[in-house]
Each structure stands twice: as structure tokens, then as C-alpha cells.
């Protein structure tokens, strides 16, 4: 089943989309409230940097979980929410990057460039963010239609984004790697769930065939 067909088949009610959007915005709203009421602790820049990074990663993994969950549970209604989750992940990642450049580095571009060149965890973080840009730009229905089968190929980049994002968290941790390792484990499970589809695709002779949305 093509994604376009799937999207056409069923659309969630507006209220459901509004609720989903509100939920995705909730971490930002809480952050804004904490900032406005001076409840970000002694190092507020670090707090907003960590919280936006955490939510970017959580929402990214949630995006990646839609397809396997849909397959295992048969909940077709999950699919239309995938774009919202992905865009929310991108929004938090972008915010995370902006906070790093503006608030943490104080727009000192030499420092930012040195960080990217000398510190692998910054480089992979930036790569993850950069790879999300084409995905966000092509997330509209029009772009989906225009790109056709290429759309899906392009959006497989999301797996690379997941790997880079988890590496970014893992390599930036100073001491306790438990939390990033939990994220790495979840990502590994989500990637493994795609393995059968990938293997099937490899086994198939190249050429036009039924496009597998579940890959």
C-alpha cells in the first residue's frame, strides 16, 4: 500500500490532530513557563539545551516507532500522526541547535566551527539536524505527490538521523551512559524491526515492484 493511498484512505478528525499538536508542543510550553518563572536552576542554558535535545530524540524515536507499531497492532490510524511527530522532532532539534549557537556559544562562530571540526559529538549532532531539513521540507502532501516513489527513498534518511542523534547523545555524556544507552537500545529495536523488509527488498530483483510502505 502506497503511503499516499494510506493517507487518503483515512484522515483523523481535526480534534485528534489538534490534541496531538498540543501534546507535541507541551514540552516547549513547560520549558517556556519554567523559563518565565525562573525555575530552570543554576545553569538555565544547559537546562534548555538538554531538555530540547531530549525531546527531539524522544519524538524522533516516536516517529520511527509508528510503522512497526502499526504493523504489530494493526492500528492504521497511527500513520497520519507520523508527519506531525517527525516535524515536532525537527522543531525541537532546530531549537536545540539554535540554543547551542545563540545562548550557549553566544553567536561566536569561530567557537562553533571549532566545536564542529574538533568534537565528533557536535559534528554528528549537526549532521543529524542537517539531514532532517530535506525531510521537513518534503513533508507536505504536495511534495509527497510530486516526488512519488523518490519520496520514500529520500525519507529513509530518517534512519541515519536516528543513528547520528543517538551517537550525539552518547558521545556527549560525561559519565553516566545509562540514559543514552536506553535510547540506543530503543533505536536498535526499531531498526531491527525493519530488517525483514530490508532483506526482502535486497532479495528482490531491482526494478519496479510493489512499494513496501512498511520498510
Amino acid at each position: 500500500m502506497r503511503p499516499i493511498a494510506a493517507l487518503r484512505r483515512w484522515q483523523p478528525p481535526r480534534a485528534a490532530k489538534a490534541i496531538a499538536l498540543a501534546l507535541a508542543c507541551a514540552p516547549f510550553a513547560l520549558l517556556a513557563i519554567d523559563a518565565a518563572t525562573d525555575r530552570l536552576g543554576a545553569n538555565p542554558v544547559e537546562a534548555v539545551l538538554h531538555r530540547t535535545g531530549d525531546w527531539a530524540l524522544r519524538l524522533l524515536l516516536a516517529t520511527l516507532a509508528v510503522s512497526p507499531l502499526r504493523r504489530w497492532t494493526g492500528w492504521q490510524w497511527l500513520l497520519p500522526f507520523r508527519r506531525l511527530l517527525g516535524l515536532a522532532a525537527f522543531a525541537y532539534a532546530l531549537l536545540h541547535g539554535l540554543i547551542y549557537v545563540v545562548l550557549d556559544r553566544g553567536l561566536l562562530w569561530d567557537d562553533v566551527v571549532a566545536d564542529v571540526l574538533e568534537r565528533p559529538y557536535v559534528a554528528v549532532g549537526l549532521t543529524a539536524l542537517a539531514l532532517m531539513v530535506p525531510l521537513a521540507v518534503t513533508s507536505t502532501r504536495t511534495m509527497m505527490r510530486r516526488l512519488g516513489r523518490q519520496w520514500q527513498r529520500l525519507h529513509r534518511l530518517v534512519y541515519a538521523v536516528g543513528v547520528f542523534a543517538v551517537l550525539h547523545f552518547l558521545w556527549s555524556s560525561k559519565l553516566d551512559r545509562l540514559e543514552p544507552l536506553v535510547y540506543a537500545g530503543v533505536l536498535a529495536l526499531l531498526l531491527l524491526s525493519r530488517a525483514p523488509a530490508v532483506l526482502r527488498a535486497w532479495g528482490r530483483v531491482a526494478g519496479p515492484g510493489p512499494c513496501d510502505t512498511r520498510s
Partner: protein
Amino acid sequence: MQRIRIPSVPSSEITPRPVWEDRRRFLRAAAGGAAAALLLARPGQAAVSRPGRLAPIADLQETAHGKDLKPTDYDDFTSYNNFVELGVSKEAPANNAHLLRTRPWTLKVEGECEAPGEIGIEDILTQFSQEERIYRLRCVETWAAVVPWVGVPLSLVLARFKPTSKAKFVELESISDPDRLPGQRRPVLPWPYVEGLRIDEAMHPLTLLATGCYGEVLPGQNGAPLRLVVPWKYGFKSAKSIVRIRFVEEMPETTWVRLQPDEYGFYANVNPTVDHPRWSQARERPIGEGLFARRRQTQMFNGYAEQVADLYRGMDLSRHY
């Protein structure tokens, strides 16, 4: 004929060269500082306001150290801590501080010394003059603070135990209490926490054995009841909740060096020109200054170069980081 006998001087009585050299320099600096303090002191103006949370330290002696610095807000300094024994996050140490038992508390001193023994926290508080010194604190993670410590120069305490000439280093060991301290139930770090100093660093007049901060006894999350303060080194050198000090001949293997020798060195002197592999050390962020405060330049030896640079003369500081 009467032979003249030269009395033998025990090696513990011989003051190491860097120490007496330092003492002269320190006396000079102190004389200048005292003069400055007299000029700056205004009657009725308390330098450090007491937060009124814990027991005040009796007979506090104000000093000229850091009178020009503005202390970090008490709540910020006591809610944002690295004290892994009490938990790995910045908030955990304050939340778990009640689990730390600080009485009774005994400091054992042993190793290359003539009078090994122990001293209780009450004796340290009553037998030594408690000095208030305002120092800059710089964490290896690039945040910074200004702390009005209370304590005793470490050299005064160590002298009691008469280190011998074999005492080239001191090794400091922190509390080990996995039954009570949540952070010690997981092998996040190899427990107990061990830090070390070269003997001349330990005997340096700036090096403090702290018993309090902000005029009161130390909060658990800041290393109660007894911690080291070495203001020209990254914070992790300043071991918290110390139970043992050992005089040793060889450089001790310290906790962070054991864990990641390419990221943490034995010296760990604050140095804006030598980066940690994962972050630049050129700039620091003072805590408690809000969301829009900018980083400021980090100073060589955290601003104490005048007092300590001589300790490292001739050393390649990018190699001995």
C-alpha cells in the same frame, strides 16, 4: 676534647623548598592584601551574608582573599552539584544530601609521616582558626562559581602528622558508604573516590581543607563535613567528604585519570589554552546568571597564576594537563 655534636634534624622538620619559598611570597602577598582589606573594609558591612540554613561556624576569621569577588547565590551553589556518591545528575546531590552522615567524622592521616593518626571533625573546627576565603571555582565542565569557603589551610593540618621527605604526594580518599549513598550502589565510578596532589600543591597556602561555606557548615551536597578546595584546579580535584589522607612517594592514581586518562589528567590545572577533548576550556559560564548571560574568558590557573605558576615552571602544561 669535647666533640661538637650536630643535632640531627628529622626529615619531617625540614621545610620543603617550594613551601618556604611560597611562604615568603605569601607573606608579601598577604601584607599587601591586608593593607588592601583595611582600605576596602567598611564598618558594619558583612562581606558574606549568611543564608541561615545550617549551623554557623564559630569564631570565623575574615581574610582578604577574594574580597573583590561577588559570591554566587547560595541556592545556586547548593542545588547544582557534581557529587556522584549522592547521584549522577546535578540535582541528585541536593536531594540525597540527607543520606550523608557527617557525625561522627574522623579524618585518618597515614603513610609517609612520623605521626600517623586521626583527627575528628570537632577537633578540626575547634583547634584550628577557621578562615573565610572567597575563591573562584571552575568546573572542568566549563561552569564557574565564586564561593566564600570556610576552612583551614591544609598545610596546617598536615604538619601535625609530620610528613617525611618521602612524602612526595598526598592521596585523598572520599567517603565509602554504599549502604546509604545511592551513587555508590552502581559502579559509575570506581569507588571510593580518590584524588591527589603533589606535596608542594598540598602545602600551598591557597590550598584549603574546607569545613564550611557562606559562614555555615558545608551542606552534604557540597562535600560535608570536610572537603578539599584547590582554587586553581578544576573542581573535580577538590575531593569531597574526605575520610583519609595518605602521604605517598609515587603519584597516586586518581579516580578520573583511571576512568579516562585521555580526558582527565593528574594536574588538572585550570588552563584556557588546553581543551578537554569534548569541550573548549577557553570560556566559562558563571552559574546563577540567567538564560541570556554570556560566557566569559577563563583565566590561566583560574586567576591564581601569580600565586601558583611557579609550582609548574618548566613543565609542558599541554602534556601535564
